[in-house]
């Protein structure tokens, strides 16, 4: 058997080409938007933007220091969680509920509210059987937009901190939030939504349809009809991907034909969740006045992503020897949609775990141990290749600071990055940014594996069960949201601990990034000399990759060893 399909390679190459072509125009566009410069859409959107400010009483000229910025960020998100929680609990009495679905139970409502506001979109529920049309279209879709825009605002504030010299202000949160939604997310989501509708993604408010089965099934009596859930899917779908949210309208997420009908929509959906995180590196380069810095970070991200994708693809293509032994040859297609194949599935999965999107188009639980392990590892790296919108880049910048610090020492200088000296405060903040999610995974998965409340929910025995728990906390702590499944996570224990993991993984690093921005903004600029470590060449890219991988590997080697690795060794028949 050939170990790759030529069409898969073409698809991967085409996707990379499209994304790379988008980096510069989209990145520069975003830089113009956040710097308040005239751009392509200002003639149309500028009046609307002004209207928003007037309506909300925002003075767009007035910038603030990091503390106020962080306060606004936290206030906005806190109110968002409370609002969403209330809507979910009271969904039964709210409109647009043709199926008459009841309110969410309290811990599930907490988990879901936190999940959508933190851009995680972990779902301990099935959309079609739990959430009304109102819930899906208004609060959940809204949170898709604003949670993404809030993450982008944080990274933009951090970039300003790096770019500015001896300044106190790092921007206006409300303005950054508004601009992110209005100029970036809305237009792209609108175009993508229309495209998806044209390709067969549904968009309606009808009640669920009854369909007559072509072939009757016999399950404790003849089953001749099937319920087809309906709904305004396309509008939900486009922003779920674009904002690296990932919560599905349906339980099957992007594997569902109404969410993702064809290889073409699959291709577009993958491009949607990768485009903003990748292009933000260029926005960064533009805003700090040195685009090569952005390309360097992008290269480091892509190298890890592509190598991981290759490993996953190889593992899924190779298939499962236990199944081969039963005379069924071929790659591991269990849990994958035939219309996507190994290429379309692994590309989607690698992208979704690497971007913190968390949408899925295939069953991750059914991947080969190493294939699933790669998905897990991409999250455990801290969601930085390229990570979620905004959050990916600010976490990566945390890694950059640490890499610069150690490398700076090794060449005998007080380390500096882009002309800013890295000192005590920056170290504190970058350590918090980089390590919080890892700490959260270690603590919560450690608790879950010790307590009966945790182990009781595991559906698969052995190392696979361990992987399921690890995956759940990796996903929550890194605000990814994709699920390995195979675990009954809708219990109070999981709802609460996963909720806390999401809160911790979102807000601690974000506030640390803002604090770092404030501290960097206040610093003087140090002009580069021959003794300055260049941060835009291959040596530094390589070093950055090593730092990201080493931190991830050292933190999770035992866990990965007892989960995916030992499962793999057992599968291939090691004794």
């Amino acid at each position, binding site marked *: 058997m050939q170990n790759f399909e030529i069409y898969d390679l073409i698809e991967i190459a085409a996707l990379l080409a499209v994304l790379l072509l988008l980096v510069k125009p989209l990145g520069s566009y975003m830089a113009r938007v956040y710097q308040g410069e005239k751009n392509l859409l200002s003639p149309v959107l500028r009046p609307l933007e002004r209207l928003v400010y007037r309506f909300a009483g925002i003075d767009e000229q007035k910038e603030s220091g990091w503390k106020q910025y962080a306060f606004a960020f936290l206030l906005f998100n806190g109110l968002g969680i409370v609002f969403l929680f209330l809507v979910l609990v009271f969904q039964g009495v709210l409109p647009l509920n043709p199926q008459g679905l009841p309110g969410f139970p309290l811990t599930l409502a907490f988990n879901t509210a936190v999940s959508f506001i933190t851009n995680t979109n972990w779902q301990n529920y099935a959309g079609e059987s739990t959430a009304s049309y109102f819930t899906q279209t208004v609060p959940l879709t809204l949170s898709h937009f604003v949670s993404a825009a809030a993450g982008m605002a944080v990274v933009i504030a951090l970039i300003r901190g790096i770019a500015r010299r001896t300044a106190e202000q790092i921007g206006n949160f409300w303005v950054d939030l508004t601009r992110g939604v209005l100029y970036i997310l809305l237009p792209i989501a609108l175009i993508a939504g229309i495209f998806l509708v044209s390709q067969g993604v549904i968009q309606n408010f009808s009640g669920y349809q009854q369909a007559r089965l072509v072939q009757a099934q016999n399950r404790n009596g003849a089953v001749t009809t099937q319920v087809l859930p309906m709904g305004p899917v396309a509008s939900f779908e486009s922003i779920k991907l674009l904002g690296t949210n990932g919560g599905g309208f349906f339980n099957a997420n992007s594997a569902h034909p109404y969410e993702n009908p064809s290889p073409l929509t699959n291709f577009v959906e993958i491009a949607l969740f990768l485009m903003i995180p990748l292009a933000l590196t260029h926005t960064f380069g533009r805003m700090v006045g040195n685009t090569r810095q952005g390309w360097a970070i992008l290269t480091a991200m892509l190298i890890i992503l592509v190598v991981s994708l290759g490993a996953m693809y190889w593992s899924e293509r190779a298939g499962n020897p236990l199944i081969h032994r039963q005379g069924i040859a071929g790659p591991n297609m269990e849990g994958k949609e035939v219309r996507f194949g190994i290429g379309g599935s692994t590309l989607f999965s690698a992208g979704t775990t690497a971007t913190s999107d968390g949408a899925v188009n295939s069953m991750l639980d059914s991947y080969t141990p190493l294939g699933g392990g790669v998905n897990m590892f991409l999250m455990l790296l801290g969601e930085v290749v390229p990570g979620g919108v905004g959050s990916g880049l600010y976490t990566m910048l945390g890694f950059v600071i640490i890499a610069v610090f150690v*490398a700076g020492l*090794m060449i005998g200088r007080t380390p500096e990055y882009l002309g800013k000296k890295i000192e005590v405060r920056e170290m504190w903040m970058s350590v918090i940014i980089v390590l919080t999610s890892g700490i959260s995974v270690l603590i919560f998965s450690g608790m879950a594996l010790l307590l009966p409340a945790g182990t009781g929910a595991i559906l698969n025995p052995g190392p696979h069960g361990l992987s399921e728990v690890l995956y759940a906390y990796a996903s929550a702590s890194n605000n990814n949201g994709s699920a390995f499944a195979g675990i009954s996570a809708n219990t109070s224990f999981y709802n609460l601990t996963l909720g806390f993991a999401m809160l911790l993984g979102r807000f601690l690093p974000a506030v640390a990034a803002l604090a770092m921005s404030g501290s960097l903004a206040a610093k003087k600029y140090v002009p580069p000399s021959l003794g300055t470590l260049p941060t835009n060449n291959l040596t530094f890219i390589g070093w950055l990759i090593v730092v990201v991988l080493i931190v991830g590997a*050292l*933190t999770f080697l035992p866990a990965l060893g007892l989960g995916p690795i030992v499962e793999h060794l057992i599968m291939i028949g090691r004794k």
Partner: protein
Amino acid sequence: MTSVDKKQDSIFSKKLMWPALRGTFSKLNPVTLWRNPVMFFVEIGGIITALNFVYNIITGKGDPAWFTGAVSMLLWLTVMFATFAESLAEGRGKARAESLRKSRTEIIAKKVKQPDPSGPATEINANDLRKGDLVLVGANELIPGDGDVVFGAALVDESAITGESAPVVRESGGDRSAVTGGTRVTATENIIVQITADPGETFIDKMVSLVEGAKRRKTPNEIALNILLIALTIIFLLVVFNLNSLSSYSVKAAGQGTVVSLVVLIALFVCLAPTTIAALLPAIGIAGMDRLFSRNVMALSGRAIEAAGDVNTLLLDKTGTITLGNREAVEFIAIGGHSGEEVVDAALMSSFTDETPEGRSIIVLAKQMGSRLQELPDHAAPVPFRAETRISGVDLEDHSYRKGAPDSIVRYIEQRGGSVPAELEQKVTEIARAGSTPLAVTRDNEVLGVINLKDIIKGGIQERFAQLRKMGIKTVMITGDNPLTAAAIAAEANVDDFLAEAKPEDKLKLIRDYQADGYMVAMTGDGTNDAPALAQADVAVAMNTGTQPARDAANIIDLDSNPTKLLDIVEIGKQILMTRGNLTTFSIANDIAKYFAIIPAALTSVYPQLQTLNLMHLANPHSAILSAVIFNALVIPFLIPLALKGTRYRPMPAQKLLVYNLFIYGLGGVIAPFIGIKLIDMLVTFSI
């Protein structure tokens, strides 16, 4: 009186060994060890495993007692290697402080009221001297305190602080007036010294407390690195907590094997935690100070040395740094039809009261050329040099003589209604182009001629500047010379830039300008007029021969008064940071091999398949874990010499240096423990 031992003692010399061993144990006190959190946790691990050992012996349950005992002992050894490294580094400083202290023997001072050696003196204890007191010091007497010579000149033996046995001249006026308490006057008429420091604040007091490390505080960079190390320690604590859960779940899931024991978890934690760098971190800083001191440089704070490593602009006084000491008069040139004799006499006349070395070299040259004048006539009124007029000379009853920089002289002559011959301009330009300094000489309102003062560039200085350029450091020469002369010398010496006709406030402004552009500026200085600029510079090196204000404004003092030392200081600053960075990388890179040693060993009872990860083929779980812990402990003493000496610094661009160090300490750090642990495992299994 003993002089300071200048030679680097060999690192493990006997003399330093005993005190270091004592310190090794006293530093185990958890209250003080807390300052080094990584080692503090290792010590806690040592305590827990020791209790576990007792438990194993009494109950016979759990790990074999010999194994727990061995792990516990190794953890204690790890901590002790760390405290030993720190004590050893401190010991070297203490040894120096001891010999310094001996110079502070009781001295009886002769206090006087007036700066006049013939006046009455009262004897008081040197410890009772206060700032501003005047004391009389005669030949072969110890100078009772830090101060300035306000009358007379003497040869002073400063070996007590510099270790240099050749005595140096200290004289009133000028930039060589400062003397240090505890140094000995060897030959003199009597001198009068004005005390400038209260007891307890003298230079020797400061030195003692510095080298003893009593005042040592962590530098910002050390704190930043500590944050990283603490964060890693916390992560690894959680990793072993997590491993405990993982293994207890896996035992249930696999239905076989045993949960990883507390002792093995602690062993894994200690191996993963960055113990190597944490153990050596204090020693690196202390040893850096000590290395500077052995080159006769006193850093008044660790911060100053680190800042030196970051310096990217050096302001260097031309005189003494770039050129050899002082300029010498080599030629008298007559102009405007005056005779050579007239010029020589006028030059001599205007220089009699000039105490600067240049002035003296004029007198010497004039006498060599046969001038008949022997001394200043009576009723002569000296006109001292002032920074504003920049001329000096003497007024006699009949004539007035002046010499000075040509442009100042031109102004002076024009003010007096005289005329300046065109020839002056031409001669001056000629001399200046050649890099020498012209001085014009006048009598009344006539210019008689020009003195040619020649500068001699120090040998080898060009190469050093080229080296600095490679390190990314810009050199700026500062001189009072006119721009032409300055340009000629700057070109010859190969500096990047120069500041000509610099007045003290120009220096200050130059430093501020550079700093505003974000540069880190270092400068050397010795004169009182350098003090403001020294205070402004990021790294300020004062010559020990310098005046008290200059020494007060500086954060580094060069006991040899050799301005090129700045280059050494920069190198040592870089070395300290590099040693830290390299050992951090090494320490973390080591973890990979340790994981591959311990994880299969700890979990093989649950999943025998994990033996695949036993890349080193270590004999059995116990030997594997012990080997990793032994390697982790032994690597500390093995690296002590490196920590004390510092990793080698070679001037090369940042990028290359990084690749080079990553190759040695990064890749080396990955590979070395694989080999080391395997070898130890072979030894351990052989001996068991």
